[in-house]
């Protein structure tokens, strides 16, 4: 009996790890076709809100922004099987002709939901783009990076972060000294377990760093096992310039709650703590990763989504002791409006959190601001809305100001400055 159970376990586990690392794949296809309303089930309306297929930001499903030192806003995005970067000198109102970084022959570029191409700008003007592909014949992902040293006119040939193993959901940070840190979810241990017929839940959490502007990454290592393989990682730089990453972990009993870990400067060690005990014991892919921000005082702030036994909805907690302990989770967002995809950012003494809500017709981005390191927050205020498909909200800080970056089908790409004082933060739309 016991042996049978083990054999079945092994079978189940091998099926699990042969799956790709979960992506928020529920998001949408891109090809266009004619909308048809009220068709019978056999011919249900096809792509009524299809994105366009041109090589421009507005046609992408996701767009991740970065400010360069010269003040230009860069976004990385993919359309079809190609990855692009484009720059804006007017805070996202218009973009230059995009630079093609790569076109893949087969498979997909991850660009839906939690999985998305990214770009970071280094102090010397170098741009570093990263993206993940999943080739057709392969059930795992590969993270690629490409660099531009001519102001985004051209990018180097993309190179795989790792030649084997299967990786997704990268998060890249650059500190003041120019050291680049990368964190990602890594299937290497899961694939090894599968090959040996052992059960292995989730992915590993791996890290690396680069001192040559992203040409090479050193110290690539899986430091933690059993991250939930379905959600993004989030990273922020601590006061000392080393990064802290947050992700969803598969804990004992298939509980998918959140962890944070601070890396050592050489990315060789990670000190991890659990953010909360929501007790979301579920054999599913939440497709909903956390977000972390660290303010100038060095306080850590985390937001996340859960449907746990103890808590359900969006929550916020902070740590005043560098992750040793976290405050009692505080609920925000409106459950009646399917609040989701929270993210936060710190900007010059202020902290912002935004999230998505949907009432069945209108998608809104709600915002709250804190001027006391997260102790209290302004009343929620709708800062943007749309009536059709949209990307998750992104936040970005630049020169002490915070911006909402949001890509919607109807309105295209938007970069919106967030209020700097509580009075305007509280003002109705």
């Amino acid at each position, binding site marked *: 009996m016991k042996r049978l159970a083990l054999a079945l376990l092994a079978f189940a586990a091998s099926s699990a790890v042969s799956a790709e690392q979960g992506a928020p794949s529920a998001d949408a296809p891109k090809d266009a076709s004619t909308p048809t309303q009220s068709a*019978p089930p056999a011919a249900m309306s096809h792509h009524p809100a299809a994105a366009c297929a041109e090589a421009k930001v507005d046609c992408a499903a996701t767009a991740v922004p970065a400010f360069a030192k010269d003040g230009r806003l860069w976004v990385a995005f993919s359309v079809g099987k190609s990855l692009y970067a484009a720059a804006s000198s007017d805070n996202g109102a218009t973009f230059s002709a995009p630079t093609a970084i790569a076109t893949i022959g087969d498979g997909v570029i991850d660009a839906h939901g939690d999985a998305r191409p990214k770009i970071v700008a280094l102090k010397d003007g170098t741009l570093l783009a990263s993206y993940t592909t999943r080739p057709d014949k392969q059930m795992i992902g590969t993270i690629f990076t490409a660099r531009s040293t001519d102001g985004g006119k051209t990018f180097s040939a993309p190179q795989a972060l790792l030649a084997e193993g299967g990786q997704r959901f990268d998060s890249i940070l650059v500190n003041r000294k120019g050291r680049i840190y990368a964190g990602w979810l890594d299937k290497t241990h899961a694939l090894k377990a599968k090959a040996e017929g052992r059960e292995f839940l989730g992915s590993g959490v791996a890290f690396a760093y680069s001192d040559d502007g992203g040409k090479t990454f050193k110290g690539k290592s899986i430091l933690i096992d059993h991250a939930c393989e379905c959600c993004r990682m989030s990273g922020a730089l601590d006061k000392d310039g080393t990064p802290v990453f947050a992700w969803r972990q598969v804990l004992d009993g298939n509980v998918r709650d959140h962890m944070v870990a601070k890396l050592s400067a050489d990315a060789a060690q990670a000190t991890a703590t659990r953010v909360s005990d929501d007790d979301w014991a579920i054999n*599913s892919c939440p497709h909903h990763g956390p977000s972390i921000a660290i303010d100038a005082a060095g306080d850590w702030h985390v937001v996340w989504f859960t449907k746990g036994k103890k808590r359900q909805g969006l929550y916020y907690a902070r740590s005043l002791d560098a992750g040793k*302990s976290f405050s009692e989770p505080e609920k925000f967002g409106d459950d009646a409006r399917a609040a989701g995809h929270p993210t936060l950012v710190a900007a010059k003494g202020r902290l912002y959190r935004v999230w998505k809500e949907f009432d069945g017709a209108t998608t809104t981005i709600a915002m709250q601001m804190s001027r006391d390191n997260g102790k209290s927050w302004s009343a929620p205020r709708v800062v943007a809305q749309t009536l059709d498909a949209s990307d998750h909200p992104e936040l970005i800080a630049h020169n002490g100001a915070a911006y909402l970056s949001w890509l919607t089908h109807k309105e295209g790409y938007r970069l919106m400055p967030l209020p700097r004082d509580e009075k305007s933060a509280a003002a109705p739309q």
Partner: protein
Amino acid sequence: MSLATRAPRVIGNPEAINGAGFITLDSRSGLRPTGNDKNYRSLVGLRRMRLMSFAVVIALLAGGGAFAMDFKPYGRGAFGQLTKAHAGRPLIVHFWSVTCPPCLVELPQWAKIAAEKKGSDIVFVNTDSDDDRARAEARIEKAGLSGADHYGFADDFVEKLYFEADSAWRGELPFTALVAPDGGVVTVTGAVDDPLIVDWLKKHVAK
């Protein structure tokens, strides 16, 4: 460069955090939060055994030809249209993705239910984009579900698609909507052996 060439061990401050406890990390063994791992494994084992005991091999109904499968487009309004089209009969709408490992593990169990519970209509909805549909088809064949009724997400406005099935659904997968003959809907996130699904099948679907 190879991964995990070192085995750094990190011991944290053992102070309790929110009652969650501190976790000791080790690059090889991963997280081992306080103790009942063994119990958990046997629990999982029993649960999976129960599931697997159902899982007989079902012959592939369709051949292995590429793109042979017809994924009907699932856009906004689809959920209502489905419930209307199947009104008066128990309907199960199961949402899944190729990038969701728990979904793939349980697809074969859905094949078993589809074969056993002839009194119900089961519709499968793949939430991936068109780019991933070939993989979805391969998984369907592997699970023995080639002959079932398949839809594929065909709209970028996923919030709307989620909302129509359940206003509280944010896209977690697998996700199953159980629609009773009278139109009453129960939704379940996660495993097919969830008591809600088992009870619903008992109540609404005879063998």
